[in-house]
């Protein structure tokens, strides 16, 4: 029999089983998301020291609150939202960088920035620049760039994770790219 033909359960289906009390199935969710969460947390916090602890906290928090997950929604943004909150808590606890209290970007509507169809070369260049210049970007630009270019999420998903307007996601990505380019060129020269 060909096992690869057996359809894999969706994240939402597994979450539902966990909600019903099947703790063992949670291990499958952890397996699926471990790499994503590690990648996201390491990049957002750009500090490997406590990234592993934060990732563990993310999965523990997700388990504790699994019954708050609506199985009709997508699991991935819900998981990233928990990771975002844990990262923010870590930043605040360790006073790594100032976090703005008021978000002026979210105050007014912006012309809707369409999701760009960056070509593969551009994406590679941006990822390289991001990897090298992460520390030099403010959290409010760093995070949407990571979610878009490394986690490959859509604007609406990023909006749900960060709880900001969809148009603001576009604004932050545009500004983030400009700042990233400036920082990169200041350090490595123009390419």
């Amino acid at each position, binding site marked *: 029999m060909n096992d690869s033909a057996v359809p894999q359960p969706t994240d939402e289906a597994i979450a539902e089983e*966990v*909600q019903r009390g099947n*703790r063992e199935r*949670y*291990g499958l969710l*952890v*397996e699926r998301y*471990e790499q994503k969460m*590690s990648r996201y947390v390491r990049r957002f916090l750009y500090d490997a020291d406590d990234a*592993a602890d934060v*990732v*563990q906290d993310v*999965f*523990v928090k997700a*388990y*504790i*609150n*699994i*019954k*708050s997950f609506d199985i009709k929604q997508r699991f991935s943004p819900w998981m990233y939202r928990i990771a975002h909150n844990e990262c923010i808590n870590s930043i605040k606890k360790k006073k790594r960088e100032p976090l703005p209290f008021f978000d002026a970007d*979210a*105050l*007014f*509507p*912006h012309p809707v920035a369409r999701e760009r169809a960056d070509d593969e070369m551009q994406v590679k260049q941006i990822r390289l620049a991001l990897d090298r210049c992460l520390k030099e970007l403010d959290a409010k630009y760093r995070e949407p760039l990571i979610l878009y270019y490394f986690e490959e999420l859509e604007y*609406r998903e990023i*909006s*749900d994770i960060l*709880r*900001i*307007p*969809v*148009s*603001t996601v576009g604004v932050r990505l545009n500004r983030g790219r400009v700042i990233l380019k400036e920082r990169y060129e200041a350090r490595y020269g123009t390419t």
Partner: protein
Amino acid sequence: MEQPNQQPSVKAQVLSHIESSRTHMRPGWYFFFHAVLFLLLLCFVLGVLVYSVSFAVFAMQQSGVWMLPRFGWRGVPVLLAALPWVVLAIITASFLAAEVLLRRYAFAYRRPMIVLGAGVFLFTGIGSFIIMQVHAHERLKRIVVDRDVPIMGRVYRSPREKQFRSFHPGVVMLLGEDGFLLRHARGDELTVRVTPQTRLAPGMVLRIGDDVVVLGPRSGSIVEAKDILFARPFPR
């Protein structure tokens, strides 16, 4: 073969946490009650907002301050001094609290804050309008003042009792050669002096029983009228 001092994987650590009973899944009812409490809090804040706005309008009508814009720029300093600032502070705080609470919901955070603010503003406007139309504050005032309810009685009495140095609403009681006797909305009597510099509305003829508003400095029980306007009848 696993090395003895190798760090366990994240999955192993998380499952170990769960299995060792150090970590428990929160029950479904916890989130249900959390959602209900949150909704109640939101309703409370919106209720305070609607009530405060309608009360601010009511208080300004009661004190006659509502009329000050009709005096143009001359009425502005008095208006600023006469606004119910405590109520306005409560309105501002409630408005901001409502915005913060509403941003928990996708329909709110996916849109710019100004759009949400406009929605809250509209909701408050409609709610306050309904309250004013059913004269809820007048009815409540009658109850709390007649029964001398603590705090609320004082709150509803205070707009009428408020004293302004240069703003005097009342009823014309007696006409004289150079002025008239005004029974203030608070109940005391003032002598209003009308001079050639007093600004009256074109064709204005004062009669006994007219409800008026006088703008001018007061010294004792005498007012030097700078402006006089007809007002709609004050509640007696």
